[in-house]
């Protein structure tokens, strides 16, 4: 029932008035960056602190890491090619060389997959954040109401699961 619990938690988050769509979308965006980039990189620590410091949803970040981790794995060769392209850009060579000769090298920026996935996820995040925000808002406006009024929703209300649903509804 682990998958079902997560699903229920996700529904709870989406249905909760305690978490704004922006908080949820922010958490998902940070999770996306962390998921697409290789794990245990130096920037993960920074993003983790960002997650702790900023009032974004932690669970959505974890969800984003899991979902985009799978996507990142599938797109690994693309990130490798993109990263190699970025690291071989002539006009960036001097900058890279300076980074390479400093402690910044500890970020492993010179790794093709890390560079490719990190830049791609950073570029995607301003695009994906409004999309996540829009989708969450649309969900709350249309899907949540439709769900409550639906036969399934009525049926679930009568069952013990419905009480759980009520619980997650907040």
């Amino acid at each position, binding site marked *: 029932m682990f998958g079902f619990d997560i699903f229920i938690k996700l529904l709870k988050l989406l249905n909760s008035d305690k978490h*704004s769509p922006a*908080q949820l979308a922010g958490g998902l965006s940070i999770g996306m960056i962390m998921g697409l980039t*290789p*794990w245990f990189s130096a920037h993960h620590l920074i993003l983790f*602190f960002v*997650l*702790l*410091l*900023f*009032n974004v949803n932690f669970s959505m970040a974890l969800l984003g890491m899991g979902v985009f981790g799978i996507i990142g*794995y599938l797109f*690994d*060769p693309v*990130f*490798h090619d993109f*990263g*190699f392209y970025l*690291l*071989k850009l002539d006009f960036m*060579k001097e900058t*890279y*060389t300076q980074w*390479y*000769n400093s*402690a910044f*090298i*500890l970020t*492993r920026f*010179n*790794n*093709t*997959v*890390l560079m*490719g996935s990190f830049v791609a996820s950073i570029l995607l995040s301003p695009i994906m954040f409004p999309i996540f925000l829009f989708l969450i808002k649309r969900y709350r406006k249309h899907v949540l109401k439709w769900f409550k009024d639906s036969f399934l929703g009525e049926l679930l209300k009568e069952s013990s699961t419905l009480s759980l649903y009520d619980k997650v509804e907040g």
Partner: protein
Amino acid sequence: MKLFRKSGLILVIILGGLIAAGYYFISDDLIEEQIEKALSIQNGALVEFDGLSVSLLNGTMTWKKMQVANPDNVMQNRFETTETSVSITAWKLLQKKVIINNLVLADIRTGTERKKSGELPKEWIPEEEVEEDSGESSLLKEAGDLSKQAKNALKDKVVNTPVFQLANTSINADSIMGLLKLQTPDKVDSLRKSIEANVKNATETVEKLNLNKTIKETDAKIKSINVKEIKDVKSAEEAIKTVTELSKTAKDLQSQLKTAKESLSTGISEVSSGVGQVDNWIKEDYSRAEKIAKLPDFDTQKIGELLLGKELMESLNDYLGYAETGRNFLASMKSKDQEKDENPERGKGQNIRFKSFEPNPDFWVKKVNLSYKTEKDIQLSGVITDIIDNQKLIARPTKADFKGVNKSGETMSVTGEFNYLGDKTLESFQFDMPKMSLRTLDIGVGGSLPTGFTKGNGAVKAVLNITNGAPKADITLKNTDVGFKFAKKASGKSEKVFQDVMGRINSFNIDAMISSNSKGLKVKIDSDIDNKISREIKAVAKEEVDKIKRQIRAKVDAQVQAKKKELNDEINKQKQKLEAKKKEVEELVNKQVAEIEAKKKEIEKKKDDLIKEAKDKAEKAAQDALKKGADKLKSKIKLGF
């Protein structure tokens, strides 16, 4: 809604504190494991630290003990150190790079036993190491066995060296005569029989002519002619006719005599030629005797090799060993040129290198100050610079410069360079020892050769270059004020002479050269001592050989000359016999011919006398008749008138 989370801020502070504390307490272990792994992989066997402490802030690393296992013998350490402090670039460790700025290693102990095996854990063994194992260093491996090969080769040469054949083999005329079966006596006997047969044959040829009978018959016929009884010309002419026939017979005899003489002369000639053959047979017997004696010819290129070849080969092997250790260590750290990895492992990617303002190798020991005592009790101290995984990053080769002193106070210097900057790898070594006491050297060849030196100094210079794994070396040893030491007093004359010869030599040079080609290593050892020794030895050996030759000749002569004398006597006897026969026959025939001629002359004179007498008588009768007729005519005339 607040942008920041207060609880999150507290959590960040707590986490940061925990990370700092964790780093403080466990960093040494982490770094120790990381450095041990990195160094062990480079070394090919475990490198272990005890009590390693790293201060990232100060950039220092200290340890109480370091053991570097020997990959060739994992139960032994290449060396181990006591407490040591090292200056490092600390933050590079977080990058899994080991940059040691200055490493001071003192009181190093080499070849110490290990309690546990120093074998690398399987997961640490790099895959490519297996592939590279049989690469360009094969010649060096071959060279690694060089000392063993050289020793075996030298042992063989000791056995096969003429000096030892002469010294160790009891060559004497009697033993050679025992082995030798002289052919001359048998041949002389055979010749003798042949001569006898020839003489018999010649005599029989003469006998067959039956000269005596013919002479007797002729003699009887001559005697039967009595000249006094010849009264008239007719009888004289008949006698002449008979004598002429006898003369003809005599000429036939002379002709037969000629044939007989030729037969006898041939016999004599054959008998005489037999003597010449005997001399040749004797020469052949001498030659065979000398061959059986295996009297040696000297090779001028062996003595020096025998004397110090082993020492030089061992030195060369030491240098090759250092070279191989160095090159293997550095070769294992070589970086590859960077091209795009088309198919990296998922999530791993590829690390791109950029030009470093400061060289940024994975492993770099900038300077090592090293001092230690070798197994041969030589105190070495010096500096090794730039032990690095990729020399191209710093554009400098790895260099070593050592000074040493042995327990006798003799100094030496060793410099080495491992150059992997170009397309070809080049390792070069130079060893210089201006004064080395030869007394400590153990030649160790044995036999009748010197075992060492009673005095003397040697100056050693060695240059070894290994290009792409192919070694080329030149080691020169100049020795002065030399005195040779022998294990035992000379027992035989040859040994005594050899020791005397060696005693007269007070200086010599020896040069060992090693080169390589596609077939393998080629070692050549030259020395001027070879000429010096072999010249003297040759002279002595020649005398010895001449003496043995003379003894052999005397022995051969003793057996052969008696036979030769017998043969000569026989030949002379037979010759005399033949000559006598020839003379006898010749005299007989000549006497017969003379008699016939005399008889013939006598008869012819008688005939002439008889003719004259008849003529005189006829003239007188005619005168008388004329006178009577005239008288008768006169009387008739008177009567008519």
